[in-house]
């Protein structure tokens, strides 16, 4: 009993008093200069009267997802326009030149941007990079993701300084069938996507930690 208690207590202490020096060890992890926290771009008041940008990362589900969302929004709003950007080939979003072009594109017509589709390890990461560049341009964004890649999005995004907003969808990776996607993207989910673009920023989202 006593031995078990000591073992438990030791584990508790190590878990909460973790320190490489105390352990007599050198730390195998590394520093990063990427931590500077940046605010999210201000949201728009409503979609009506605005231009919505669709930013594709080259994943196959992105075009039919965008088609579905655009169709629903056109039915809902009389004064709304759309513009498309991004890449056709998977993972080209990692190139600086392409990211610069995305930022320039974002400074053009769109008032808010929906990016898609985060459904693999590297494509989710590079989607978050491109979405971050749109936020750099002062344009509010929401990233669409397979629900299995939410943690991946959050961790990649925050390392670049922003808790980028996202909406997970029931469209699992590599689904391209338009009719199936239309059935999976409910009207309620479209409203939630809109909400990410219009809901005012929280204090945490506004904050900049230098």
């Amino acid at each position: 009993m006593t031995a078990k208690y000591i073992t438990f207590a030791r584990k508790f202490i190590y878990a909460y008093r973790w320190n490489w020096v105390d352990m007599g060890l050198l730390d195998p992890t590394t520093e990063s200069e990427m931590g500077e926290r940046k605010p999210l771009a201000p949201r728009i008041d409503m979609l009506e009267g605005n231009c919505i940008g669709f930013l594709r990362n080259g994943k196959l589900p992105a075009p039919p997802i965008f088609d579905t969302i655009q169709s629903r929004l056109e039915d809902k709003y009389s004064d709304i326009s759309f513009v498309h950007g991004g890449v056709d080939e998977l993972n080209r979003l990692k190139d600086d030149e392409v990211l610069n072009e995305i930022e320039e594109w974002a400074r053009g017509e769109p008032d808010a941007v929906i990016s898609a589709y985060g459904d693999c390890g590297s494509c989710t990461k590079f989607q978050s990079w491109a979405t971050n560049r749109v936020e750099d341009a002062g344009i509010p964004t929401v990233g669409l993701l397979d629900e299995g890649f939410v943690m991946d999005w959050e961790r990649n995004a925050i390392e670049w300084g922003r808790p980028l907003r996202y909406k997970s969808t029931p469209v699992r990776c590599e689904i391209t069938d338009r009719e199936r996607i239309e059935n999976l993207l409910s009207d309620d989910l479209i409203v939630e996507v809109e909400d990410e673009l219009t809901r005012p920023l929280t204090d945490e989202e506004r904050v900049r930690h230098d």
Partner: protein
Amino acid sequence: MSEQSPQSLEEVNDTLYRKGRTDGLPVVPPTERRVDEMLRGTDLPRDHELGRLGNRKGILTVEKLAINGVMAGCKPIHMPVLVAGAKAYADPESNSIQFAVSTGSWAYFTLMNGPIREEIDVRTDTAAFDPGFRANRTIGRALGLMYQNTADIYPGGKKMAVQGSPFRYSLVAGENEENSPFEPLHVTQGFDEEDSTITICSPQSFAQHYTMGTPDVTAQGVLKQLLDNTGPALIGLDLESRRRQIIYALAPYNAQELGDAGLTKDEIKEYLYENGSVQYSRHLDEDTQVEYEVKADDKVPPYRIPQFESPDCISIIVTGGAGRVNAIMGQSLSKPVTKKIEFPDNWDELLNEYTVKREWGERTTPGPDSGRAE
């Protein structure tokens, strides 16, 4: 436990494991004394930056590399290889930013060429990729730990490998240059034959096959077997995959059949390129893929199309011992990236101090045998 650490070996390992800093196996605790000792293997200052890795652009210094090397079980004589390997991972051409985290579960393939193989006993002969050989095992492990602890990746948290790879940190060998009729890979990559180098790339699969009997055991038979065993999953599954890379690791006996027929590496690559094919229908994916170019005067589309975009997609190496089993490693997200290994001034002293002569593991093909006891 050991010097400098107030905790037991088990406690240190439990904590490192809890923090996600291991590969699941026990590690050697990176005490200051051990890290200082590891740093004898390089003349670079400990704060010298080797590169930035991963989404967070983690700053990899020589000291951090040495710490991960200690944890992996490396010795100071492995440090020059680790430094060159780290530079390869930091090179954007390696595409490590992608293959380390992708759902595709890519391995960290590592090949060593040149005198380093003999000097630190890198296995090039029988069981080259197998467990058992310290340099092969610890160098691959160290580079894997280096990447995961610098980029701060772990499953679910930025590493999204669907099923993972059993070869992730262990696909490591030396080229059996002494039993190859071809120029070694580092020479193909533009280095001098007497240079020591490390090459990395990122194959997804490791598929082995035999060549047996007549007509397989001929130059044409060996090439036929290579082509027959290069399934679409290894390269050419779709148009993007056709642009990726594949590595043919030939057993020395099979390589000799090709050499005896007077074939060069370039001629073999050209032959594989000309004859490798996949079904055209695989590349017809509604409007989401660009169709293979169909000539205007074609009455019907081709049934099969080239599996490789060009001969440059193909690398050929020779490794392993007696026997006729080849391995095909593909598809790789990156071209092979090769870096020259630079040695510290005290290299000979380190070799004298840290070389362990094995009492087992004889070669089955002719060549240097430095790792074994006289």
